[in-house]
């Protein structure tokens, strides 16, 4: 598969602890092996403490791009938290951006402490759709709970991203990477999670 745009700018985002850095590195390793020039920039600060975390990925056939994507120039956004999706869209989105997002909120502390309201979910989803050229909205947290492994939500999202067919990755390549990333026992579960995510996207047409 070739790139429709070069560089392809992909942002994987979420909240500290959700595992978005892991999936961006998995994608980075696979594409590097396939000869793409991949640079990942990670913005996490004190990420384990509830902050917003995102990895910006530059994927190119030509050369190594810097880790920072110019504002308004993302091509694909994969997100583990809907408010974070919107935060990234506001800074890096454009009319043609493609979004795959989890719909399960993780409330900021300001919301827990009742100083701010979390945006109404229906409005949040609608705004994500308005600001995206194409958008897939799935509750990967719920799916992971059904699978019995809440932490596999990131791999379900990776499956979703794979299902869109917009990044130059094959199922076999991602499965191979899962096998080499996780110990055998966890690998099986994650392969299941990957397939769940892929099917969920294939089953739902993009809005």
């Amino acid at each position, binding site marked *: 598969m070739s790139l429709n745009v070069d560089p392809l700018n992909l942002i994987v985002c979420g909240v500290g602890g959700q595992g978005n850095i892991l999936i961006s590195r998995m994608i980075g390793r696979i594409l*590097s092996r396939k000869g793409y020039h991949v*640079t990942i920039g990670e913005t996490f600060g004190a990420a384990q*403490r509830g*902050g917003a975390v995102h990895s910006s990925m530059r994927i190119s056939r030509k050369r190594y791009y810097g880790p920072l994507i110019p504002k308004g120039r993302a091509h694909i956004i994969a997100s583990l938290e809907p408010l974070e999706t919107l935060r990234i869209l506001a800074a890096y989105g454009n*009319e043609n951006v493609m979004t795959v997002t989890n719909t399960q909120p993780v409330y900021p502390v300001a919301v827990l402490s009742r100083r701010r309201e979390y945006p109404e979910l229906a409005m949040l989803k609608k705004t994500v759709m308005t600001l995206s050229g194409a958008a897939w909205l799935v509750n990967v947290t719920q799916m992971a709970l059904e699978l019995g492994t809440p932490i596999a939500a990131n791999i379900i999202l990776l499956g979703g991203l794979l299902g869109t067919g917009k990044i130059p990755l094959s199922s076999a390549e991602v499965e191979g990477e899962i096998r080499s990333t996780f110990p055998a026992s966890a690998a099986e579960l994650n392969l299941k999670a990957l397939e769940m995510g892929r099917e969920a996207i294939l089953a739902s047409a993009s809005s």
Partner: protein
Amino acid sequence: MTTVTKVKQHNDLQKFLLGNEALARGALEAGISFAAGYPGTPSSEIIETLAKSAKELNLYVEWSTNEKVAAEGAAAAAISGLRTLVAMKNAGLSVALDFLTHLSLTGLGDQQGALVAVVCDDPDAHSSGDETDSRWLAKFAYTPLMEPSTVQEAHQMIQAAYGLSQKHRCYVILRSYTRLSHASSLVEMGEIRPSQPKARTDPSSCLTPYLAKPKHDAVLRKLEQIEKEFDASPFNKYLGPDTPKLVVVCSGSGVTSATEAIELLGLEESVGMLKLGTLWPFPKSFVQRHLKNVAEILVVEEVDPFVELHVREALYDAKPSKQSVYGKLSGHIPGYGEIDPDRIVQALSSILKRDYQSRSAEYSKAAQSVVDDVLVSRGLTWCPGCPHRGSFWALGKALKADKRDIYVTGDIGCYTLDVFPEGKCQMNLLHAMGSGVGLAAGLGQLGKFGYDQPVMSICGDSTFFHASLPGLINAIYNKSNMILVILDNQATAMTGFQAHPGVGYNAMGEPTNRIDIENLCRALGAMVTVSDAFDIKGTTAKIRELLKVNEGVRILILRRVCELLRMKREKKKPLVVKVDTQKCKGEKCAICYSAFRCPAFMKDTDTGKASIREEACPGCGVCISICPSKAIIGEVQAS
């Protein structure tokens, strides 16, 4: 984290590495034997990566108590003939600087060792109290500084830095920064050649900066020599058209950003790029050679106008005809923060009168209304199960019960989050590592000036060893009137749970002497009390007791291992914590989700009652004791 040595067994010399891993790998290929550092974002992964290779390659790797000690250890090993590395963040360089300014004057002696100090700056202060620019300190300390622009170049440049250090018998600063240390890409590596160097020092001579004047002169001559080499360095190059209309001078992350900005504006035919990798001594003739016939020059760099001032100086000396130099001093690049493609696009557009639109005006307008009306900032907070939440809860209760204006000094660690927007803001004065005790010690002497507020200082266990100890000894020696609360969570938690002298194991994971904070404090002559950070009632009572005493140094140690570390070790929840919705008073109370603010709590939007997010709750159970209605229940999990 990747083990960077494994690759050689697979006979595969390409690997997808983090910037800090590439620096570690480059240092290993350069043949280092000794590495030391103190953790600090964004530098920590360098020592962590080397520690993982220590056994296989027979290295010595340590987490030192602070950056000065780390620099001294690595310098001593270099003076004995080894190749060594010291790693720190920008703030750490200030700690090590007293020693490093002296070391510049003596050099590393005649045993053919080499020392590279990797200093990781944090422009934008993503995880720092400031964004100080280390490049000035290389100039201040009379030592060479190099700055890579990509992960691959970092891997090569650190090897060149070892060559330079050994040749000129001086240490070299390799400046990294957040966008390099925490970027990753594929790195083409070389082989790691096993070496067994013999360490030896020369007892017949004295390396000392004293009698400094002639040594200063010699250092200046050495820097002149290095400047000549930098003028021809492959890390400095011109890229672009033969007769450019404008040249962008850049280094570090400015290089990829400038390349992209030129591409975004379609200026490849008219704008060139002068990329600098060796920044001190400044490669003046190289810059003069490439810029003397250029009419317009834009200097892009992070934080301070270091390169810009030296470019201006070089051009002044070259006396060219009319030239315009743009950058921070002209207001084309902001005088603070990171450099990114957008900042350069903006500067170039303004100088060359170009239009650039990243997306339609309509989209930008919609995006702006999202920023204004929808986004809620995600302030940092302590993790679910964090001992500090218990400590600060008890502290808050004790402070509230005491009617006096207690003044609290803080320090650097996870507990610093208390002064962030989502914290409890109980600390009133907070500066550098270890400063909390020093500041409190000063306030504790003000009784004779009518100061009658009780003074309390808070520090963590790693910070205690790093720089609080001299302040504490000062306070006890000078009979300051203060309380010190040590939050002992058995790790340098903020930066990723690195070992410190109080944990009983070292950077390489080997068991070692454990320095007991309680015994140490008692030996110093302080009054010492210990409590469990999760024993809210007991801790509150103990703080109140210490507040009744009005003289001398009183210490409270709050013990409880970092929850993330506990979870890593035990891999299970101690309790299944649930809310009894019959008993929960909901919004009338809201203490758990609104005041205690453990992120595992949620407010049920329909009933207003508390609920617990199972996937976020670690089952620590501290919340059980803060619920006035006894509505939070913890059940021991069947194993």
